[in-house]
């Protein structure tokens, strides 16, 4: 009986040594995963995911603290890309109602703008130009459509206008009325 205990003890001690050593030898710093996740997020910085912007959300996902379905601007495509990267089951989006497919951008009715600069402070990507007491303009190309500038405006002169379809941004529609469109897999629960 003693031999048994001693043998197993010897075995486990030597394995312990090995593992202890390799824990130090193969220590891993940093996490390249956050970068990859961040690259998938739409960078709208709208905070709808409940985090202070896209990067914090990416960090939370990497740490396994947040689910992958919280970003409405990223939509289903974004969620699927995350599921793909992380090898997880796709999950239906949390706030489906916000994922209107048509993208909008902010437009300031310039004659009504009083130049209070509140919208400039709200815009996470500096897409609004103008100085205090002067009318402000949204740079259409840089606006991500996050709507954060709309509520602060004291005179409510900011509208979200849908982006117009032109010959250059028109997309061929998904063929419809054909056979069944595949739906993304739902989780087993």
């Amino acid at each position: 009986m003693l031999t048994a205990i001693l043998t197993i003890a010897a075995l486990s001690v030597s394995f312990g040594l090995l593992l202890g050593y390799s824990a130090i030898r193969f220590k891993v710093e940093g996490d390249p995963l956050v970068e990859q996740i961040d690259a998938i997020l739409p960078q709208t910085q709208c905070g709808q995911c409940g985090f202070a912007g896209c990067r914090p959300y990416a960090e939370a996902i990497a740490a396994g603290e947040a689910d992958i379905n919280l970003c409405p601007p990223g939509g289903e495509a974004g969620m699927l890309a995350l599921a793909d990267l992380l090898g997880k089951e796709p999950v239906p989006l949390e706030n489906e109602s916000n994922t209107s497919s048509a993208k909008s951008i902010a437009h300031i009715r310039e004659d009504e703008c009083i130049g209070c600069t509140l919208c400039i402070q709200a815009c996470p990507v500096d897409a609004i130009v103008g100085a205090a007491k002067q009318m402000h303009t949204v740079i259409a190309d840089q606006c991500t459509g996050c709507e954060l500038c709309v509520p602060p405006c004291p005179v409510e002169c900011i509208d979200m206008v849908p982006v117009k379809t032109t010959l250059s941004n028109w997309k061929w529609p998904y063929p419809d009325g054909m056979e069944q469109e595949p739906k993304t897999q739902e989780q087993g629960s």
Partner: protein
Amino acid sequence: MAKLNKDILLSAAILGIFGVLGATLVSLTWTATAERIALNQQQAFLRNVYKLIKHEEIDNELLKDVLTIHSPALSKDKVQVYRARKQGEPVAVIFSPVQSPGYAAPIRLMIAVRADGSLAGVRVLSHLETPGLGDKIDDSRTDWILGFEGKSLDNPPIEKWKVKKDGGVFDQFTGATITPRNIVATVRKTLEYFGQEKERLFKQPAAPPAEPPFH
């Protein structure tokens, strides 16, 4: 560096401690159970044997009176030969396990032959034959295997030791001739072996293996 070493030693210590605890638990249980387990296994084996040869017919310590033979004519692997005696007189030998080729995988048999060369009986220890076809050799499914009881090399005559389809006396199963054919052949070979080696089988001094392979 000192810190590193400490970490390593700590890991080793933790694993070591649990190793000791686990090993202690198992060793204690082993000590407490080893004997009973051995006994259980022996009894299980003996129960099988007593189905073929009545308990009262034997008075020697069967499990000790055993030989290990290795005869390619009989079986690919080693076979244990248990010798049953009453008051020193040979009663029967039990070959176990004898391998017979099956349809899917080898079939392992226990074959008991009385001293007079007649069969005390045959049992299938394990097999992987097709359910519904070849598995009728199992005594829990049909009584086919009981048909060997009392048969010997003269009864039926040796050229009739075949399945009916091949001109013998033993039944086959519809659609599955291979399995019974092979078993009949194996039992016949065992009888032949016994016939040739009978003297030696009973005389040779016992040599029980260190760890009897019960089945």
